[in-house]
């Protein structure tokens, strides 16, 4: 177990290093430049601005300088277009918002998706099953930029108590969390249903039923643990994705989260911000995958020997 954790951590560090290096060179290979604006910047000002950010140096110099700052000073660098703003400030301000939204959404996804999937599996080929399946299909097919504005216009404009957008009172969390939650609930429902169907047809379930255990007990005590394994494998990375923010949800609901920075940093050629965000996201993914692995081991004893 400990050996597994250590080896996964080692792999994680290598992954992150490769990620940092790849991102560094890829963002600089993009066409365009951070200093291109609608109104041309005069040559002499441009020269001074490039000196200030160090982007006038040759690539290898920039790379080793970046690595050194990262490892020695734990410094992700400054923004190029916003003087004196640190990448770490952007992440530390926006991540808590995305984390709150992500946790709430994953909560909604779990509370809606897992029971829907389990019920659908238990009542296979009934109206309940079809209802759950069609709900899931709709959730998967409809993109968030359709569900979001629909919810905003119907619930937000319809109910006086809900704001269509903003992030000022806890009530503002509901619509974006429901939008993000429902989409993931749909995936979870399908995965949970599939997993449960698989488990419910196994011999040990038949044995449990033959012993006279009540239906709910069989489902909850015997089947659920095995049946949720596919769903759990999905939750790990999905959770990392959700807590790092969603550009679409954030622009639809005007949320100061992290997702918008991913997209804007790329279009603005904010090199250091892209690198910082990718590194941070990579860190989350590595961590979430590790946790998902551990959860799967807890659920599935057969994995412990491997």
């Amino acid at each position, binding site marked *: 177990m400990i050996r597994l954790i250590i080896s996964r951590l080692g792999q994680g560090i290598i992954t992150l290093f490769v990620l940092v290096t790849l991102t560094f060179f890829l963002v600089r290979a993009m*066409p*365009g*430049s951070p200093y*291109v*604006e*609608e*109104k*041309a*910047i*005069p*040559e*002499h*000002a*441009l*020269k*001074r*601005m490039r*000196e*200030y950010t160090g982007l006038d140096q040759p690539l290898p110099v920039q790379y080793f300088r970046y690595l050194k700052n990262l490892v020695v000073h734990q410094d992700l660098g400054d923004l190029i*277009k*916003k*003087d*004196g*703003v640190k990448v770490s400030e*952007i992440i530390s*301000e*926006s991540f808590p918002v995305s984390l709150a939204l992500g946790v709430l959404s994953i909560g909604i996804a779990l*509370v809606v998706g*897992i*029971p829907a999937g389990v019920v659908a599996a238990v009542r296979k080929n009934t109206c309940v099953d079809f209802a759950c399946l069609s709900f899931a299909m709709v959730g998967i097919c409809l993109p968030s930029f359709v569900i979001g*504005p629909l919810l*905003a*216009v119907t619930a*937000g*404009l319809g109910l*006086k*108590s*809900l*704001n*269509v*957008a*903003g992030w*000022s*009172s*806890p*009530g503002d969390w*509901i619509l974006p969390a429901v939008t993000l939650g429902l989409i993931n609930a749909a995936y979870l429902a399908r995965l949970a249903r599939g997993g449960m169907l698989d488990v419910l047809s196994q011999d040990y379930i038949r044995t449990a039923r033959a012993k006279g255990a009540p239906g*709910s007990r069989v489902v*909850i005590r015997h089947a*659920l*643990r095995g049946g*949720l394994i596919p769903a759990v494998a999905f939750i790990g990375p999905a959770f990392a994705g959700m807590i790092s923010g969603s550009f679409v949800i954030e*622009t*639809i*609901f*005007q949320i*100061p989260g992290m997702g*918008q920075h991913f997209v804007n940093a790329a*279009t*603005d050629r904010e090199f250091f911000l892209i690198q910082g965000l990718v590194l941070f996201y990579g860190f989350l993914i590595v961590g979430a995958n590790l946790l998902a692995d551990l959860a799967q081991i807890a659920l599935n004893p057969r994995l412990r020997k491997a």
Partner: protein
Amino acid sequence: MFRGVTFRALFLIAAPVCWLLASCQKESQVDRATREGILLVGNANEPKGLDPHIVSGVLEANILRALFEGLITNDPESDTATPGGAALDVTPDATATVWTAKLRPDGKWSDGAPVTARDFAFSYERLLTPELGAKYAEMLYFLKGAEEFNKGKTTDFAAVGVEVLDDLTLRLTLRGPTPYFREILKHYTWTAVPQHVVLKHGKIGQRGNPWTRPENIVGNGPYQLKSWRRTHHIEVERNPHYWNAANVSLNGVRFLPITNLYTEARMFRDGQLHVTYAATSEVVDLMKKEHPENLRQEPYVGTAFYRYNTTRKPLNDVRVRQALGLAVDRQAICDTVFRGYKPAYAITPAMGNYHPPRIAGFDPEKAKRLLAEAGYPGGKGFPRLKILIASKETAATLAQAVQAMWRDTLGVEVEIENKEWNAYLVAMQDLDYDIANAGWIGDYLDPLTFLEMWTPGNGNNLTGWESPAFLKLLQQSFQETDGTRRFELLQQAESILIEEAPILPVAWQSRNYLVHPSVQGWKPLLLSNNPYQFIRLVPGR
């Protein structure tokens, strides 16, 4: 792990909790803000910063207008620069070359320190200091010797036409007669930054000086920074040291960086905003039906146009460029693509007493003839050119309309090349395009802000076109003291530009946006630069 009871309990708890949280607010945000005297403004995006010497942009200017006050302010009634800012008056000599600003004795920074002529001189020196690398320094090139100092050709600031005569008197010597100098002074690059605060946090030419961080910033405007949460809001509150604080009506302004215009419109309809940044054509149509009283459609000093790459065949032939221009029906475009825009036949929109020349309109016959003369009768043999656009919706619709007009009228086939914003800008600056969609918004209310860019070597020309005759007329206008004569010279220069057609003006912009009825005193200004201190909020509307 998961038990049925847990699920049920979660359901039972979650639903009412959500409802409780949701029903906390009863009064709409606009109603509450109106009661509290806070104006809620949609401001498009997170500002790049609050240092007037570093930033350049409309949304930054919207915030800077609350925090800093220039020598002269804009009078919202007449939409002209009028004495009554940080200076009691700014007066010219007989040639309009030497201007003397008399600062008001009661002018104070938001930390209580007096605003002096030295602050203004320091500010102009800072903006022009080469080490700062200020990209908008050229706004100060009106000052004698400013360009040379900024480009490092001279190193002594004494050679620049800025003199402090005493604590409250500033003398500005310009590079030539500038009768419209007061209009220039409205631009935020001409506001002062507090010398004592800037130098406390860094050196004069230091980039990334933390003096504009929320805990440090000091200004001389009617408002001071109250709170700033990135990508959430910036709020300003009354500056108690402002000289005219007693007559400031609003208690504060809250700027919301709403990037998505549809979200902004929903927030307005939901009672979360007093003023929006812009309304899309769909929103314009909807509001015309539902609440026409909230919709504002106002002229704006901006022009939508196409650039031709005049270094490429066949666009190096003036007849081809003219033919393409004559084949575009601007009226049809304004009716269908741009809501509220006006057909443009010149680059400069009408402003004040300046009326742009009207030379060419929509003339399909002449267009065909010119194209035939250029060697492409009926469009035969005309190469397949590309219209370069950035991924923005109206740009694509406009390009499709133009594409169809050229096909129908001239038999010319063009392609539309859609690039991501940054790549689009690079292609344009590298002259790596045939025809490019473009726009220009004036910095100040004078035709020069639209004409100076077409001089040779100007970083915003980007067409490869240059004309000695055009340049000569512009230079003559720099020496002209008579306003009417000066406009004639500029008109002649613009006629040359339109005649030689390195660009195809399409439409003069208007600004479509929404204003809540409780907002009083919000005027239709050409630069859309309403001074917040003159705005009132009236509840119950």
